[in-house]
């Protein structure tokens, strides 16, 4: 099943890896050559990506595109099998943008720059590998490949407790990987034919118990990465210790790998189990939102506060996934893309602050707006995006998830009302922790520690990075179809697939998890959508 065209995805995965090879040999004149080299590698990769999708990706098509399949290691059945669809394409673009900007944000790395940039580029490759892999083993391989650079980056360039954070990160995710591997193998060997191909795995007819078991295992694995309460405690440590560029990628892309995998594995391949687990996901989503918002509010460390805010935002993704509606699924993906951009911007800006003040403790910061007005403005914009201000992408994501969940016909009205109500509490909590952060850090008079210290405002390079992230945030917020039309066909397909099993599940007399219910409709009047009413 070879396509005749150029193997774009293979090229996309291999290019950063290959580009990283000569770095150890390059002369590093004034410490500038390597960073410019890496940046251009990132830029070339990002442009290749845009070109490949622009030319060869059909937005109306919900099936896999740019398909490639090579027999890699036949002995163990490993295929080099790649493809993208509406689910992965936006995330590939997101990782391209965020990682390239993270390289540009690493200008201040003076210690072992060669290793640093090699690791960044390896991470780049692995991210794209995760999002495009169509073979369960290849997926696992890429997932693991991603972990190593992150571990090394935190362990080498992190803050004071970097070893603790890095070890915690690697142990957590390695434990999660075991679950992925076990599930992948079990699913591959289930039934008559042995296969690792994701599509074929999805077509297998598993018994319900097996599906539920697999779903549970994968949920634990991806729940560690997403992260879902109570598996989240590595994230604040990793973020508070990681250097800013790594935090950008960590929050911007790595967390989305888990959300993506949840949809790809749990929903697409195990739809029957999803029908049972969905209410659990919704409840976990709400717990994420409220629990993490509250802990974020109590944090004194700037980056820990934002790490917890990431957890809260990923809670919305869970609710969207659990909605069984086009809107919910679309909102979940939009929320992932949007949080990727927003979190990257906020972590970058906190890095900008840290470079000047050398502390992340908010009680030691204060009144910085006077000396750093541009940083203040960008930070405000980022926080506004994060608290889901309309006109920015976060709002569209959350609104679609709210609409998607409340219009879902899979749950009883009482359950829906409870979930929506509690999730909406997050709408009140997010400005509390974000604005109080702005108030402590930027407003008021300068803190004792900063009195008399000269702080340079954001340099043009730094303002540029923040703007590169804010422009798409605002673009999507002003006209969401910019983003949604790239994956609409796919999310509709996923949602309808998930919905198909609902009647079957509801018929099971021994499991009364859901009470199918439809919103009251007026007899004879079809609910017209706004587009037709408006005209």
């Amino acid at each position, binding site marked *: 099943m070879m396509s005749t065209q150029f193997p774009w995805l293979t090229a996309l995965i291999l290019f950063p890896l290959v580009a990283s090879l000569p770095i150890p040999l390059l002369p590093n004149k004034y410490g500038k050559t390597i960073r410019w080299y890496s940046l251009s590698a990132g830029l070339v990769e990002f442009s290749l990506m845009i070109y490949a999708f622009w030319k060869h990706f059909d937005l109306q098509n919900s099936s896999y595109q740019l398909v490639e399949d090579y027999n890699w290691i036949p002995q163990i059945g490993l295929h080099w099998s790649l493809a993208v669809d509406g689910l992965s394409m936006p995330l590939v673009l997101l990782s391209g943008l965020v990682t390239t900007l993270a390289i540009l944000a690493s200008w201040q790395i003076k210690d072992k720059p060669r290793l640093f940039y090699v690791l960044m580029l390896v991470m780049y490759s692995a991210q794209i590998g995760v999002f495009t892999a169509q073979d369960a083993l290849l997926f696992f391989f890429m997932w693991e490949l991603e972990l190593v650079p992150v571990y090394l980056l935190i362990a080498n360039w992190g803050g004071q407790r970097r070893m603790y954070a890095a070890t915690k990160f690697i142990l957590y995710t390695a434990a999660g990987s075991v679950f992925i591997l076990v599930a992948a193998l079990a699913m591959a060997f289930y039934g008559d034919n042995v296969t690792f191909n994701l599509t074929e795995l999805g077509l297998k007819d598993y018994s319900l118990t097996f599906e539920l078991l697999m779903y549970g295992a994968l949920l634990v694995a991806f729940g560690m990465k997403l992260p879902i309460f109570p598996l989240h405690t590595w994230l604040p440590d990793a973020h508070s210790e990681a250097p800013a560029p790594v935090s950008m990628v960590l929050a911007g892309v790595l967390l989305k790998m888990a959300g993506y995998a949840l949809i790809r594995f749990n929903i697409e391949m195990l739809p029957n189990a999803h029908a049972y687990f969905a209410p659990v996901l919704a409840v976990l989503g709400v717990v994420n939102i409220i629990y993490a918002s509250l802990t974020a509010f109590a944090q004194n460390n700037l980056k820990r506060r934002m790490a917890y805010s990431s957890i809260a935002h990923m809670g919305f993704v869970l609710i969207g996934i659990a909605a069984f509606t086009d809107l919910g699924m679309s909102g979940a993906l939009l929320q992932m893309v949007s949080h990727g951009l927003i979190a990257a911007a906020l972590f970058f800006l906190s890095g900008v602050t840290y470079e000047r003040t050398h502390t992340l403790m908010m009680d030691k910061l204060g009144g910085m707006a006077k000396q750093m007005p541009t940083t203040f403005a960008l930070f405000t914009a980022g926080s506004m995006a994060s608290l889901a201000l309309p006109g920015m992408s976060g709002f569209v994501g959350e609104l679609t998830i709210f609409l998607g969940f409340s219009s879902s016909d899979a749950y009883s009205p009482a359950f829906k009302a409870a979930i929506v109500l509690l999730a909406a509490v997050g709408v009140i909590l997010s400005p509390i922790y974000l604005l109080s952060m702005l108030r402590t850090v930027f407003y008021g008079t300068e803190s004792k520690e900063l009195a008399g210290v000269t702080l340079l405002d954001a340099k043009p390079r730094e303002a540029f990075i923040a703007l590169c992230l804010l422009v798409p945030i605002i673009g999507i917020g002003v006209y*969401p179809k910019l983003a949604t039309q790239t994956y609409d066909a796919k999310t509709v397909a996923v949602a309808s697939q998930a919905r198909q099993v609902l009647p079957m599940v509801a018929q099971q007399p021994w499991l009364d998890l859901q009470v199918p219910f439809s919103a009251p409709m007026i007899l004879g009047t079809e609910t017209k*959508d706004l587009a037709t009413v*408006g005209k």
Partner: protein
Amino acid sequence: MESLYAYTWLIPVLPLVGAMILGLGLISSSSFAKQFRKPSSVFIVSLIGTAMVLSFALLWSQIQGHPTYERSIEWASAGDFHLSMGYVVDHLTALMLVIVTTVAFLVMIYTDGYMAHDPGYVRFYAYLSLFSSSMLGLVISPNLVQIYIFWELVGMCSYLLIGFWYDRKAAADACQKAFVTNRVGDFGLLLGMLGLYWATGSFEFEVIGDRLQELVQSGALSGAIVALFAVLVFLGPVAKSAQFPLHVWLPDAMEGPTPISALIHAATMVAAGVFLIARMFPVFENIPVAMDVIAYTGAVTAFLGASIAITQNDIKKGLAYSTMSQLGYMVMGMGVGAYTAGLFHLMTHAYFKAMLFLGSGSVIHGMEGVVGHDPVLAQDMRLMGGLRKYMPITATTFLIGTLAISGIPPLAGFWSKDEILGATFKANPALWVIGFLTAGITAFYMFRMYFSTFEGEFRGTNAEIKRKLKNEQLQKLGLAFGPGAMNPLELTAEHPAQDHDAHDEHHASEPHESPLTMTLPLVLLAIPSMLVGLVGTPFKNYFEEFIHAPGEVIHEAEVVDWGEFLTMGGSSVGIGLIGITLAVMMYLQKKIDPAAIADKIQPFYQLSLNKWYIDDIYNAVFVQGSRRLARQVLEVDVRIVDGIVNLTGFVTLVTGEALKYLENGRVQFYALIVFGAVLGLVLVSGIT
């Protein structure tokens, strides 16, 4: 004419473009952008001027009887779901466009004088323009989602503008308080919106109203749930229009520069709540419970605001409580079904309150020449007095505003307030009593304000009062921080640094009249404050012909009931005059000593002075409560959730050390576990 409607989108977009250009300039090179002070302001003012001309053209066309015009594009979609955004031009939109653009235009001219010496001059214009754009977007919204979007955007602009002087601690606290309080309201609005969408499948006001009624009549939906949704939606206006119990942000919002107090926190944004109730009228009017909630909330707020305004010494705080009280009138009017009257009061109030605020700004501007740039001194009426001599234009326009708000005919406030009170009397006499008493209090506190500011002797050079005020502030801060949290001396030492021109020790001994850019808007606003009420007299109510509830039929030849008009109008003028007389005796002729009265009714005096202790209760319950809760949750997170993780890690480490002697290689061991697990799983699933 059609092309005018096709280009209506320019009205909000023009100021947006201006704000974007200025904003980008400031971010990319702030020192460069700051050189263009005058060009930026002229640019922004001309953009809003263009928007104003367009709005007047639309209003004229609507008066001529042009049908409602609607245009929309698909904004978001997912599968079968489509959401469109666009604009609708009907009578209400046209009226609101004119109100917003005229006030914004005049406030922007005024800003040039008021902010002339401020380093943030260009940034202020960028924010003002962004706000105008959001507010204009709000009033042209054809559906609930779009209203929600701009609703939050005006809230954000309000946040930015309240915190404009970011180095002031009070401003920093106030802007956060405003945003969070408004978010509480938006939380209700969001839930209500989702609920209505769930029930009716639409975001359009009329469609929601019709379908809800059908659903309730057919019994598919219980009336209680519908009422719940309506009340949730109403939470939005409660926060935005500063209604009890979410009113606490508005007085604090006065920390922002005065032009925005006039534009946002008096004339336009706070009135958005009333506007939303008007838009949602087709939904609300069929739900008696919701209408009652709205009416009572409005009445309580009207009284609460007025009762606090009596004892305020800060001129802006006094006006803020007065705004809250007047908004209460509008909401009450809406709640008793007086759609036209509520919106009529919105219009008249927008003009006279904007003028009053700008007047107070002019006073503060004059006072700053004497006492320096310290809000504690420059805004306190105890340091003012006799300013009429120095600032005749400001004094005259302020007097006109005071008369208008006190409901003295034929000024604007009389007609609109009288219409609300008349409608309330018919609907619910108990509410009328509250509104009637409030009218008297309003006249009293407004004249108290006028007399203590403009009449009598000038007290601005009295060093003793100044010292007293500073001490009061220190005490307040001390209370807020808790005893011993901060050495009061530190504050005084810090104080000169806060002054914008601390170097300028040579303050004038007399205040001066403000420059032309400030007095001109005052004079221009005085005209509608006097005359705009005449479009809505009971004799020939042009206003009602133009603005009336959707579906309501206006009886053309309604005979004026002179008896009713005279009793209602006469009684409200009467109580107004009583209030004024009291104020004259207490603050002009000094025949009655206010302090003596305060001593006699000490509990009431303290209740009013401390704003009914609502802020303190909220602080203790919500602010401290949420902090405590957050700390406890974090404690759980660190000690229990993470504790288990670390414990597991520790245990594995120990057992790992032990295992080291048992195993030959870790990889094999790892593989063994994986293999065992897979085997187990396959076995388990094979059995079932």
